[in-house]
């Protein structure tokens, strides 16, 4: 040590030292940005820079195997895991105002004090110590492998057991909540919350479902005036009220309708469930495409195009208004969902933030065909009915003409 101290000048950095210093500056700056940025995803990406910089530092210290392990494990998997975590906890994409907690100033004081003390002590302690980087690499893969499998075999194997335990633990942790969801009696707190929540909402849900059903009546009557699909409109509105009624049943009896409540509350909750809520509607697309035209579009067209109301009715109602409405009425969760978005929908979604208006609207529309949702149904109905009726229309025209 004294020898190396003699051969090195204290302030005459070598090329490796300069490279180390520069990469170290980049690493440290990236780490600082990681812990201070308010954009959560950016924090994860700056963490990539910091960890990659550390891999370069390992290379400069001739520890090549560890450098590549660092790249593989940290940059490759840990950051990806963190990004997954950010997405699954629905972290805001943009700037999040509450990324830092209130004790930020105290944390800054503690960190600066610790940094000052550590840097001072470390710099003072190793002021005259040099690492000899010449000669064969101290951390080449050969050396690391030999020492690992000669001297460190038992810890190495124990580590595999630990990784297995971590694997199983992670799976158990993420599975358990799902099992609780499936069994309504699983968690008392979760259940009471689920009970508390839905009855508060369906009330507006009914209110919205009924008026919208009335609103739906108007175009229906227009259609009825031009041709005479009277039953058409009647049926297309009835299911809506059925839906509203079934939400009543689903929620007014807190004792029995718990599964329905829970599944009704869940979708509004997280985006994934929303999507799955929209999906049943997408499955019944045939129904929807038939049912919605029956409500506004198709009945009118049928009325305009020809007087043959019979076939249009059969096509629209027989399949759709009855089948689809019944089916969705049989699925109380769907009705609850349909009624609620229509009800307090937009405002809630605003609070929800990222619940993707489009998706929820879709969910509302899908079931909106039952008779409610008024504007949003019409809005997206125009989009989707634009193609369905035309395809339906052609054979009709052909049949009539």
């Amino acid at each position, binding site marked *: 040590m004294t020898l190396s101290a003699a051969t090195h000048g204290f302030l005459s950095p070598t090329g490796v030292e300069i490279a180390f210093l520069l990469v170290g500056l980049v690493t440290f700056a990236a780490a600082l940005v990681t812990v201070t940025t308010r954009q959560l995803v950016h924090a994860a990406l700056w963490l990539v820079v*910091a960890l990659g910089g550390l891999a370069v530092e390992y290379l400069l210290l001739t520890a090549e195997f560890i450098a590549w392990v660092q790249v593989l494990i940290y940059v490759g998997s840990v950051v990806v895991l963190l990004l997954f*975590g950010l997405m699954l*906890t629905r972290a805001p994409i943009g700037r999040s105002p509450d990324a830092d907690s209130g004790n930020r100033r105290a944390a800054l004081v503690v960190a600066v004090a610790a940094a000052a003390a550590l840097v001072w002590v470390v710099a003072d302690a190793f002021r005259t110590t040099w690492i000899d980087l010449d000669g064969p690499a101290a951390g080449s893969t050969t050396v690391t492998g030999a020492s690992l499998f000669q001297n460190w075999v038992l810890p190495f194997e124990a580590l595999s057991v630990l990784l297995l335990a971590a694997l199983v633990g992670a799976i158990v942790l993420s599975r358990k909540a799902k099992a609780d969801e499936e069994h309504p009696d699983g968690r008392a707190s979760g259940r009471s919350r689920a009970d508390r929540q839905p009855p508060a909402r369906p009330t507006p849900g009914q209110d919205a479902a009924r008026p919208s059903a009335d609103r739906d009546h108007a175009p229906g009557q227009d259609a009825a005036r031009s041709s005479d699909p009277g039953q058409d409109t009647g049926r297309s509105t009835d299911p809506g009220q059925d839906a509203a009624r079934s939400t009543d049943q689903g929620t007014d009896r807190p004792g029995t309708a718990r599964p329905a409540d829970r599944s009704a509350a869940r979708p509004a909750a997280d985006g994934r469930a929303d999507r799955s809520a929209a999906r049943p509607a997408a499955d019944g697309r045939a129904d929807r495409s038939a049912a919605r035209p029956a409500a506004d579009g198709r009945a009118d067209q049928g009325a305009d195009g020809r007087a043959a109301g019979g076939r249009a009715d059969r096509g629209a109602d027989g399949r759709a208004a009855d089948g689809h409405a019944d089916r969705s009425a049989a699925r109380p969760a769907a009705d609850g969902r349909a009624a609620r978005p229509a009800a307090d929908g937009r405002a809630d979604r605003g609070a929800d933030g990222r619940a993707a208006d489009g998706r929820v609207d879709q969910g509302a529309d899908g079931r909106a065909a039952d008779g409610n949702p008024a504007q949003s149904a019409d809005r997206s109905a125009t989009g989707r009915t634009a193609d369905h009726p035309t395809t339906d229309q052609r054979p009709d025209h052909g049949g009539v003409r």
Partner: protein
Amino acid sequence: MHLAYPAVLSALLFCTGLYGVLARRNAILVLMSVELMLNAVNLNLVAFDVWLSRTAEETLHSGQALTLFTIAIAAAEIGIGLAIVLAVHRNRGTADIDRLRDTAEGRDPDEPDPETSAPGTAAEKAEATA
């Protein structure tokens, strides 16, 4: 190479991670800061192992072996930690560690639960629990 360079960089990175752990609210950001601290320790281990492998007669390359172990354990830790964070987020509707005060001492029982009092968070919570 001067041993102070990696040592000082390691100390700075560690304190950066320390600041992140103390100042961040999002649990995942805290996990990121923990990763930074672990990496600082790894850098120290590697630097001192390279130094000792030249100066000391017989080393088992314990620094590098322990670095590998630390990396593996950190990977396991981040997996478990994220699973816990996701479970908490599912149950509570938040990954904000400032709001998880169930075991905090000196909590006023009359004080309304911050999760249920704020309507926005209550809705969030219902989403997560239901």
